[in-house]
């Protein structure tokens, strides 16, 4: 079967043992790229970029806060798309991918909320406020936790994945609310700074913009690396009765180092 034709390749990739090998090959490269991009972005943000004329050095939290916020939304969208595929076509790999997105998505949402709070305290004088963006981001965290909770409440993992995918799809209305909340309601949170559709409107200095974008790239690369790893583990559990898993487990010596596979 020719793997150079995209649909054939995707069909090949959908088979768990093939995806397992594919993910294992790509994961270290993606993580290495994420670490390099992260190092560059952090250096640019923490060292090279000048202090903000209004916020001083406290604004530097932006270099982790904003990329994490972007990831919290992007991961949810990924989870919803994978969940849709899982529901409609019952593809096993899509079920695993959808469910393995949730913990990383929750992690980034949590980071967004905590770093935002640490940034808000010196800037606005308060650790928390119930404005539209903060509230909807908190709601997003609850959505992730709901998906994780529902998935783990099922004995049958495949049914649990489909139910949790449906929940994720029902909750997707929250995403545009989070993104546009600063435009629809007058809030304490600052407005849109980075406008992808019209870069001239972006109100951020270039010396601050490039580290931000590099950090965004780094977090995306990290997410893909993390997702590949988690999906591999998820596939093992799901397919534990199959021959390829048993062969893998038998042939593999017990690892004592901390290196994840």
């Amino acid at each position, binding site marked *: 079967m020719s793997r150079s034709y995209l649909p054939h390749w995707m069909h090949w990739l959908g088979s768990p043992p093939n995806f397992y090998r594919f993910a294992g090959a790509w994961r270290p490269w993606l993580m290495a790229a994420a670490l390099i991009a992260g190092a560059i972005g952090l250096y640019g943000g*923490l*060292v090279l970029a000048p*202090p903000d004329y209004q916020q*001083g*050095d*406290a604004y*530097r*939290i932006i270099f*982790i*806060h904003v990329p*994490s916020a972007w990831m919290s939304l992007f991961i949810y969208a990924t989870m919803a798309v994978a969940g849709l595929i899982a529901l409609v076509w019952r593809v096993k790999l899509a079920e695993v991918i959808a469910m393995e997105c949730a*913990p*990383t998505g929750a*992690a980034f949402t*949590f*980071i967004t909320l*905590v*770093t935002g709070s*640490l*940034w808000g*305290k*010196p800037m606005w004088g308060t650790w928390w406020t119930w404005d539209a963006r903060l509230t909807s981001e908190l709601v997003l965290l609850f959505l992730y936790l709901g998906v994780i909770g529902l998935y783990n409440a099922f004995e049958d993992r495949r049914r649990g994945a489909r139910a949790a995918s449906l929940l994720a799809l029902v909750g997707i209305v929250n995403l545009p609310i989070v993104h546009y909340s600063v435009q629809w309601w007058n809030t304490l949170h600052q407005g849109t700074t980075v406008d992808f559709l019209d870069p001239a409107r972006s109100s951020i200095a270039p010396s601050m913009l490039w580290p931000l974008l590099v950090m965004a790239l780094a977090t995306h690369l*990290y997410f893909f690396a*993390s997702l590949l*790893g*988690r999906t*591999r*583990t998820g596939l*093992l*559990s799901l397919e*534990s009765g199959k021959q390829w*898993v*048993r062969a893998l*487990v*038998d042939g*593999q010596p*017990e*690892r004592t180092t*901390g*290196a*994840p*596979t």
Partner: protein
Amino acid sequence: MAHWFAMGGYAMYVWPAFAVFFIVLVWDWFAPALRRRRFTRELRGRLARERTRNTRAARAEAST
């Protein structure tokens, strides 16, 4: 260097924020590995038990 570390007086907000970022992502990176190790251990145990059961059954068959 100390001046940079002080972050213009905001050090106690900036550095904990970065710490949270790294700690959470480190957890996210290593948590599946623990899950996987537990899984392989259980599966190996199950396979070993199946093998002893099979050899016992085979021996019982052969001796009758």
